């Protein structure tokens, strides 16, 4: 297991946001976390990414306790995340935005007197990510001038530029038009394969995307894990369909073959 959370419990005052949640993600997996609003998805993400410290339970990343160690330390260990609400650097260009994580990953942030423009490795690496995400021709555009879909893509791309082992995507396609959603997902899955990511965890509301890409789905409800199974099993689980997905939703077919992330071609 790369990332393993056991019996996570999180209290905000008297309110119990998460109550005994366990989750394990192994190499090659694409795991989706679903659940209605207030099910505890955001809290779970914040616990897994070390932003919050659990009231009880453990989070282990590559057999290391990472509960509450904070985002900076986690990126060093190889875990990256993107945000539900698009997070960009408004005044930085696309390329600069992608250089920052490269600089951070290579530990070159304290090169106070070296020229960034002359750092071939950083430049090439950032450009490669820009190309993978189809942002290369906009590389000199300030992030604030990008279209909404491109902003989202840039947010995700900058997390990928950390070349993490595992990435946590908080609604990677929220706030983006339906047409753009699947394009973003395709880019994302391709990039993860090319960049050698071991696993992806996403929180997602769009069931087409959840069932179209996941190897495994974790359904949360009122702070507890309602189900943790493959898409086909989840589809047959009447409770999950009733409480989380909704009857009216037409569920797409599960993906062909196993392991979207590093699956055999």
């Amino acid at each position, binding site marked *: 297991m790369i990332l393993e959370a056991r019996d996570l419990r999180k209290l905000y005052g008297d309110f119990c946001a998460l109550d005994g949640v366990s989750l394990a993600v192994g190499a090659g997996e694409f795991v989706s976390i679903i659940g209605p609003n207030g099910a505890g998805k955001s809290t779970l993400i914040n616990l897994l*990414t070390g932003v919050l410290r659990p009231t009880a339970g453990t989070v282990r990343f590559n057999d290391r306790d990472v509960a509450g160690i*904070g*985002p*900076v330390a986690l*990126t*060093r260990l190889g875990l*990256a*995340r*993107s*945000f539900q609400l698009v*997070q*960009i*650097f*408004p*005044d*930085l260009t696309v390329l*600069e*935005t992608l*250089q*920052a*994580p490269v*600089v*951070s*990953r290579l530990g*070159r*942030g*304290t*090169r*106070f*007197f*070296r*020229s*960034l*423009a002359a*750092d071939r490795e*950083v430049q090439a690496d950032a450009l490669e990510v820009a190309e993978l995400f189809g942002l290369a021709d906009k590389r000199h555009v300030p992030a604030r001038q990008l279209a909404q879909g491109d902003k989202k893509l840039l*947010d995700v791309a*900058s*997390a990928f*530029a*950390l070349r993490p082992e595992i990435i946590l995507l908080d609604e990677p396609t929220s706030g983006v038009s339906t047409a753009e959603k699947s394009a973003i997902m395709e880019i994302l899955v391709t990039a993860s394969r090319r960049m050698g990511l071991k696993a992806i965890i996403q929180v997602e509301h769009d069931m087409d995307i959840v069932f179209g890409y996941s190897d495994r789905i974790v359904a949360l409800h009122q702070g507890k894990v309602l189900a943790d199974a493959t898409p086909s099993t989840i589809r047959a689980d009447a409770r999950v369909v009733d409480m989380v997905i909704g009857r009216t939703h037409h569920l797409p077919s599960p993906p062909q073959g196993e392991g979207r992330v590093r699956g055999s071609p």
Partner: protein
Amino acid sequence: MSGRLILGLALAGLLVLPFVLSPYRLILMLPFMAYGVILLGLNLLFAYAGLVSFGHALFVGVGAYTGAFLGAHAGIRSIEVVVLVAAILGAVVAALVGLLCVRYVKIYFGMLTLAFGMVFYTFVLKFYRITGGDEGMPVPRPLLLGLDLDAMPKTDYLIGPYYYYCLGVLVVAAAVMWRIVHSPFGLCLRTIRDNPTKAEALGVSVTRYRWYAFVISGVFGAVGGALLGPPIGNVDPTLVYWTHSGSLVFMALLGGFAHFFGPVLGAFVFIFLQDAVMSVVPYWRLVFGAILAAIVIFAPGGLMGLFARRRAPVEVARP
């Protein structure tokens, strides 16, 4: 390219100025160059880290008092030693103060830096046995590159060798700061200014980088302060008072903090405009207050922002 041309012309102008300008104006150039160094540092915090310090005069004071102290108590007058000691003291003070300040942003950062500035102010004001209190301390004429120039008349010394020395320091300081803001470190600072949450998620430690910026900024402030002492001739606590910190931020805004050389231009305009206004009426604060209000309301991009707007519409970075 045209930017480089302007810069080259400006530098050439500064080099020939002693042959053209009256001694009176040349003496005004000295504080300008000292403030130029200080503002290069202040703007690293202001424009690149998004932090507005209302206590930066603390470092100016550290630098200026270093020169007076070394002269009075240790008999050291070598400007190289003074600048070096000022830089080290500036770094040490900034490292300690910064440790506490960089955890806060916006108004809280401003207040905390103001409080530390006033601690130093009160110290130099009240411990008059060491610091001369409100009368201050005289700053001896420094030796430049080890040369004793005491035989020269004071004005000739200031507008000749000392002028070129300050210009040299300003050019070096600008070159160093240029490297810093164009380094990987500079990029990390800008990510923090734009979006600290996202910066942390990309592995950029917000408080650590802010602290680095604070220390660098403190060093520049102290070096500038060390240069400011000799032309004033006497350092006193008003140099550290909070309104002086406010004037530094004013200069940055006046020139335009979004541009690398904006604050340096701001220092230039501030000093010469202040002199021009004071030659007409003694109420320069009234005029400058009105100018500051007008800039804040109508031209937040400062003078550089006005020039840039004429050439091409450039959006002003938020501090």
